[in-house]
């Protein structure tokens, strides 16, 4: 078991004819993900890496029975792509694109929810269930099959943490990059719940950062609903207030959203918080 994706995941790539879509379609296929096709309006009927390209997601779903989609479409069209996927019956939508206007994401997210689908991202690296399915831009070789559930607001910081976990012999059930924007789909609470209910996950690593109060809400949720051990790391302890640190969502505004507040809330909920990424395996064992 795992969460969200497994060997039965049937994936299409929206924006497969673009540079990133093409590159990562091949990488995901090589990892063993069941990539069944892609879309690019106007290029239907062609193929990329022996994968059929369709004009619309509707057609792709009909022809390939895809249930999951990954989006590499440019920012100004990406929210539209999210809605198309949901309307075409895709269950799980992963949006990699960075820089989508927040109000577009809000609208797309509500649309996805009304259609009973699930959104991960935008501005995220995707997710992986090691040895089964990788949907995203994550480097597959650093992951190892195992029992640690990983959830994170970041990309390369997740790789750093996973690298330490794998080196210490601690494989992962599923690792999810939730995205660095202020508004994204699945978040801490949703994923903590899924990991808590997943029998293959024995412990959880959560990687947060400055901005918003999702980590504080997660701490509250952990206190009341999570029985598995949780270790956390919060990035941005040295970040100045009022400055956006790369991610659109990583900003301390009006004195709230600081790393110190998040760490205090997590520790109060019994979560062990690592001082540096390399300390995480030790805190887990």
């Amino acid at each position: 078991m795992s969460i969200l994706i497994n060997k039965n995941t049937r994936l299409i790539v929206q924006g497969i004819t673009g540079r990133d879509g093409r590159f990562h379609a091949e990488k995901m296929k090589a990892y063993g993900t069941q990539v069944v096709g892609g879309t690019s309006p106007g290029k239907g009927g062609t193929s990329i890496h022996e994968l059929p390209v369709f004009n619309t997601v509707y057609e792709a779903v009909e022809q390939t029975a895809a249930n999951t989609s990954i989006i590499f479409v440019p920012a100004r069209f990406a929210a539209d792509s999210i809605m198309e996927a949901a309307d075409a019956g895709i269950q799980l939508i992963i949006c990699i694109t960075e820089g989508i206007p927040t109000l577009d994401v809000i609208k797309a997210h509500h649309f996805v929810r009304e259609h009973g689908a699930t959104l991960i991202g935008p501005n995220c690296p995707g997710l992986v269930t090691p040895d089964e399915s990788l949907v995203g831009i994550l480097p597959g070789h650093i992951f190892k099959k195992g029992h640690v559930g990983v959830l994170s607001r970041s990309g390369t910081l997740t790789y750093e943490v996973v690298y330490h976990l794998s080196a210490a012999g601690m494989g992962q059930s599923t690792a999810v990059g939730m995205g660095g924007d202020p508004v994204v789909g699945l978040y801490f609470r949703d994923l903590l719940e899924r990991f808590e209910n997943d029998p293959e996950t024995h412990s959880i690593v959560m990687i947060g950062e400055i901005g918003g109060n999702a980590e504080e809400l997660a701490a509250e949720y952990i206190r009341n609903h999570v029985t598995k051990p949780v270790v956390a790391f919060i990035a941005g302890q040295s970040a100045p207030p009022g400055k956006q640190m790369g991610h659109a969502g990583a900003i301390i505004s009006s004195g709230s959203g600081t790393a110190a507040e998040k760490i205090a809330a997590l520790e109060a909920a019994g979560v062990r918080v690592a001082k540096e990424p390399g300390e995480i395996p030790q805190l887990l064992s």
Partner: protein
Amino acid sequence: MKIHEYQAKKFFSSYGIPVERHKLCANTEEAVAAWKEFQPKKIVVKAQVLAGGRGKAGGIKLAQNETEVRTNATSILGMKIKGYVVKKILISEAVDIESEYYISFIIDRNTKSVLLMMSSDGGMDIETVAKNTPNRIYKFSIDPLIGLPDYLARKYAFLFFNEISQVNQLAAILQNLYRLFLEKDASLTEINPLIRTHAGQLIAIDAKMAFDDNALFRHPDVITLFEPTPEEKTETEAKEKGFSYVHLDGNIGCMVNGAGLAMATMDMIKLYGGQPANFLDIGGSSNPQKVINAMKLLLSDKQVKVVLINIFGGITRCDDVASGLIVAFDELKTMVPIVVRLTGTNEKEGRELLKGTRLLSAETMSEATHLAVKSSGQIL
């Protein structure tokens, strides 16, 4: 991106939100002329800076006669508020205030929607109200698929007023402020305070707006209002080259791929006793030209005594990154010590390539940080 009160009031006016009579002035003579033109008993002189807390800093003052207008305008112009020099002031007609309210729309991360916040504790610092008396703030999530229809706007307006004429005024203000938020891709539209005069009229006597940077491409009218500080200018230039850069005050320059890892790198420098000079995320690829541009940016800060490069290769091959670094540093010819940490695909080959160059190679983030902090101390 933030704008000034006078600019926000212009948006308010064009969206039918009532504001008091006001005039933007750049010097004392203009202020006096505005006062004469208005001919009210009282006016308010307000500093126009892109920072909050203007009142506390002495940037908002009442004036009742020409001498007071002159004195206050002179003292406020040129004063510094949170690092911003006051170059312009707003001369506003002082209105008679019976009661004050707080109204805003913001992006709410948790409900993933636009949030309407309302309080009858207007004119106060809303963060303080939220902290001390959270029950005095109403919060309503707006469903993006229906927006703010009449019945909802009316329902919310009835929370503050019983008289239908005022309910209708407030409902219209709520709807217009929401429309402004949507149509300009704002991240904040705030009125604090919205006041009721003794005659029962509602007026926005302050106006605050901020915009979603991701949506600026579709709002050329908003982009023209951007007034960057020197620091923001550097940050904007960096953005155009594909970097995220934030200047800090330390002496260890950092170059990292990925925002989360870049923050963690800064944190570790501090944890190990050093001081980061900046946040710099160079993004996914790390081709030589990008490294050269990033290094030029780092080295333009004369405080920088050592540079720490932390690259988690991921899909990019570390030997490619290493070759790129070597090419870049051949061209740069800097004498500043450089510590490089490469991890990911072909990391051994990458480190092998760096041997014999003047780049100090480290295997882990911890080792690299130690090295960098040590080097920064030795030079100082």
